[in-house]
């Protein structure tokens, strides 16, 4: 069976580049799953969880908006504004961000533009937090160099 050639890039880095069996991503119209030989498509991605499956392996990545482009030759490209693997998410920081945004939305009198920005950032941090929590039971992040050889 043919595979999807998948690339997930942000302005800062390439987050994931792999051959996949399927890919689920949150779009404006809801979660879509892309299988090989999908027709060419361009869609807007909303903040949420992107799941990339390759055989048994599953990558769960938090994205905060962007685009997905499906090219004719089984190439799928996600241009994300920001993206993190679930094990990279700093739960504490995300929680703080959620609180900050909630407080700001309640207390301050804001212009419509400001409100939209805070609401968007709240949505982003909430989705990051959900993804981190969902995977917290298997938080077996790949070993980083530090602390591996230390007791």
């Amino acid at each position, binding site marked *: 069976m043919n595979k999807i050639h998948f690339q997930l890039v942000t302005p*800062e880095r390439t987050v994931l580049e792999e051959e996949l069996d399927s890919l689920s991503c949150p*779009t404006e119209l809801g979660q879509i799953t892309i299988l090989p030989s999908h027709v*060419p498509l*361009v*869609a807007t991605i909303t903040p949420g969880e992107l799941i990339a499956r390759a055989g048994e392996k599953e990558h769960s990545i938090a994205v905060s908006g962007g685009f997905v482009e499906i090219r004719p030759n089984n190439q799928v490209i996600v241009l994300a504004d920001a993206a993190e693997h679930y094990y990279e998410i700093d739960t504490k920081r995300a929680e703080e961000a959620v609180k900050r945004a909630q407080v700001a939305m309640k207390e301050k009198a804001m212009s419509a533009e400001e409100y939209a920005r805070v609401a968007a950032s709240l949505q982003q941090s909430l989705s990051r937090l959900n993804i981190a929590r969902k995977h917290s039971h298997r938080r077996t992040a790949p070993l980083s160099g530090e602390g591996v050889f230390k007791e």
Partner: protein
Amino acid sequence: MPGIKELKTRIKSIQGTRKVTRAMQLVSAAKMRKAQDATLKSRTYSTLAWELILNLAGQANASVAEGLEAADDNILNEEDRRHSLMEQVAQLLTTFPDAKKIAILILSTNRGMVGGLNTNLLGEVEKICKDTSLEVDMITCGRKAREWMVRGHKQILADFEKFDRSITPQDIFPIAKLVRDIYNTGQYQKVLIVYNHFVSTLSQEPRVKQLLPFGRSLTDDRDAKSKQPAKDEQLTDYLFEPDPQAVLNHLLPRIIESQIYQTILESEASEQSARMVMMKNATEAAGDLISDLTLTFNKLRQNKITTELAEITAGKIALE
């Protein structure tokens, strides 16, 4: 032949200069590594984004025209309908072939000591001005470009401060907004970016990139090649979700931002690399000069001692 004292002061002053250039070399070497890293990492994003827009540019218009055909058939001729629709769907896809002006965004450095980087860059701008019969408006970013425009009495549309810290995508928003706004007024035929492309630590080249209307870069060979497949793909129908208008209105500004962001990163990496190399050369040249002068100094000193000795000996012989 300079005297011993003059030589001594010269050596001292060159040593001082060498200290300064070495310090600058080390500073820019550190900055260079960071800037190069950022540039190379974000290149994938901007290349892919650019490919996407090339694939879409032609196709978007066609699919939109089709959509309208179904809606109402009795509007004027094809040409007019397509034009109005394109504007409706995405202003930024509109072209203004009859406009009288072009705008150039110039990304220069703030400080000198970067060899020919700015000179080459501004030479490129000069060439564009000479080749075109249209009126040219400048948007500058960086002190050197601004100063040059003021000296040359060019028309500056806007001047953006170039930050000495590393930039974030958010810093681009005002520039991108200005570019979009001036293009949407319909007075500009095209908007170009002139920047230094980072090739390697030792070489940077000034490049001209056409930002709007979306087209291939003027001097970029790689883009020229990728244009061919892009043409074929215009025939493949892209689906849009939720609809072309929503996607394009979201996508196009983002692509402009990413292109400006990338070119600024490229300029930054070029600047730091050029400065590092220049300062390294200067430090080495100072070292050469010092050893040369020290040799002359020692020779002179030895000469003096020999003469003095000869005089003393001669005096002694005379006394005997």
